[in-house]
């Protein structure tokens, strides 16, 4: 078999036309959670988690995804009637059965002639939504596709996961490369059956395999996907200006980047988890938005998502002309990081319904 080198990769026909992020205003300090549940004082620092974003009682995956998508459409200056697909990656659907994607799409006035579904693959379903949107745009099936990653991440009170599990959303409007400000150069996905983290039907909170979530899950899948991407594109870490990884805490992305050969200077610009927590399906995608908002035309960005169960998507993205003007069309990640109000654990518990009320 001979590989035909002159045929462009289909993903290179597509790019990011618009993007948007939402981070709730409330923050709770990781030190307060650690103190309340009797964790060692050094644990938040060891994980590099300072505080996490807490959705209000009237916020959920739908409302946060709606805001992020609204900004993405405004940044792209695209008529919502031209959007042919809406994918919502989440593991915290407000309804177990009833799509979030249709609520968001109707509320944004998006065309009724569209594909629309909620996707679940732990923290990487949003990344898979981007892959699907790329495929649909590249094939000419649709002109624009909207991929959203949104979560109000659950964690059992007192579980170490509670230090990081937070709320947030990111949305990407995928369209033709010539209309985009960041073009996809290559995309690969690596998935296996790995039992590192799960939530059973009817369970309120997820269960995880403690340290098992590290080497065989997070590190193996991200490194495998990124190495596959390097092989397919003939690229190396030195060819990239930025590297963005899924961020279950502040420490893991720096560690996986180091293993792959990236200096921390290329990773730090996309780090958000120490100040907002792990937004699950928003995690790597908010990091990408933060990088897009400081990148220059010609910069090459590596993005690697991760979802337990387990899998990783690796994207190579090249920034195009016009990025600076498009950044200014909506609130930036830095604006959302600065917009915050500290709340107590009690207020956090009320906001995230960690109590049992006698209703219904």
């Amino acid at each position, binding site marked *: 078999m001979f590989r035909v080198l002159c045929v462009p990769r289909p993903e290179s026909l597509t790019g990011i036309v618009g993007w948007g992020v939402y981070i709730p*205003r409330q923050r709770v300090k990781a030190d307060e959670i650690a103190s309340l549940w009797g964790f060692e004082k050094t644990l938040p620092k060891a994980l590099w988690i300072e505080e996490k974003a807490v959705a209000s009682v009237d916020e959920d995956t739908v409302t946060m995804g709606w805001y992020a998508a609204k900004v993405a459409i405004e940044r792209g200056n695209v008529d919502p009637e031209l959007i042919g697909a809406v994918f919502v990656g989440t593991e915290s659907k407000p309804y177990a059965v009833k799509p979030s994607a249709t609520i968001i799409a109707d509320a944004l006035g998006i065309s009724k002639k569209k594909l629309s579904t909620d996707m679940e693959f732990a923290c990487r379903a949003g990344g898979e939504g981007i892959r699907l949107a790329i495929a649909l745009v590249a094939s000419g099936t649709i002109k624009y596709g909207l991929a959203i990653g949104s979560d109000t991440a659950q964690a059992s009170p007192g579980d170490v996961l509670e230090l990081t599990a937070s709320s947030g959303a990111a949305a990407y409007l995928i369209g033709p490369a010539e209309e985009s400000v960041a073009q996809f150069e290559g995309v690969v996905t690596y998935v296996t059956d790995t039992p590192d983290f799960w939530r059973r039907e009817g369970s309120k909170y997820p269960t995880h395999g403690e340290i098992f979530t590290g080497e065989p899950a997070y590190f193996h899948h991200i490194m495998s996907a990124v190495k596959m991407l390097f092989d397919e594109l003939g690229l190396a870490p030195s060819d990239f200006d930025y590297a963005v990884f899924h961020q279950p805490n502040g420490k893991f992305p720096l560690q996986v980047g180091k293993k792959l050969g990236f200096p921390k200077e290329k990773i730090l610009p996309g780090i958000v988890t120490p100040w907002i927590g792990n937004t699950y399906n928003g995690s790597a995608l908010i990091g990408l938005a933060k990088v897009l908002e400081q990148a220059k035309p010609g910069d090459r960005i590596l993005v690697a998502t991760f979802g337990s169960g387990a899998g990783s998507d690796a994207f190579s993205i090249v920034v195009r002309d016009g990025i600076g003007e498009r950044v200014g069309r909506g*609130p930036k990640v830095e604006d959302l990081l600065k917009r915050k109000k500290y709340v107590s654990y009690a207020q956090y518990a009320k906001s995230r319904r960690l109590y049992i009320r006698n209703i219904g």
Partner: protein
Amino acid sequence: MKYSIPKFWRRKEGYYQIILTKCRECGKVAFFTYVRCPYCGSSNVELVKSCGRGVVEEFTISYNRVEEGEEYLPKIIAIVRLNEGVRVVGELVDIDLSEVKEGVEVEAVLRRFSSDDPHGLIYYGLKFAPVIKGA
């Protein structure tokens, strides 16, 4: 609180977006939807979507307890003058009472306003939140 599901479904466009009536004769804009202009009586009107932005003109705080709605209390209720010039009433969120004042710039945001817990529908609609700096 139990809502009529068909009634909510029929009205959802009005919950999800701010729809205004614009008169092609006198040029005035009114909230909500009319078949005739409430100012000049002309039937030559069109429905337009508001940009969803405006400023706070008046506000009050509500402690009114509605069955199964206690977790949303207290609420700040405001009169917002939209950029299109019309005034609407809505709930203010993401702002402390001490920060609310006349002239605060706000934008419409989709939020839960009620839910028939634990098995019923979740009702979404627009509230107002301060415009995020940079937007």
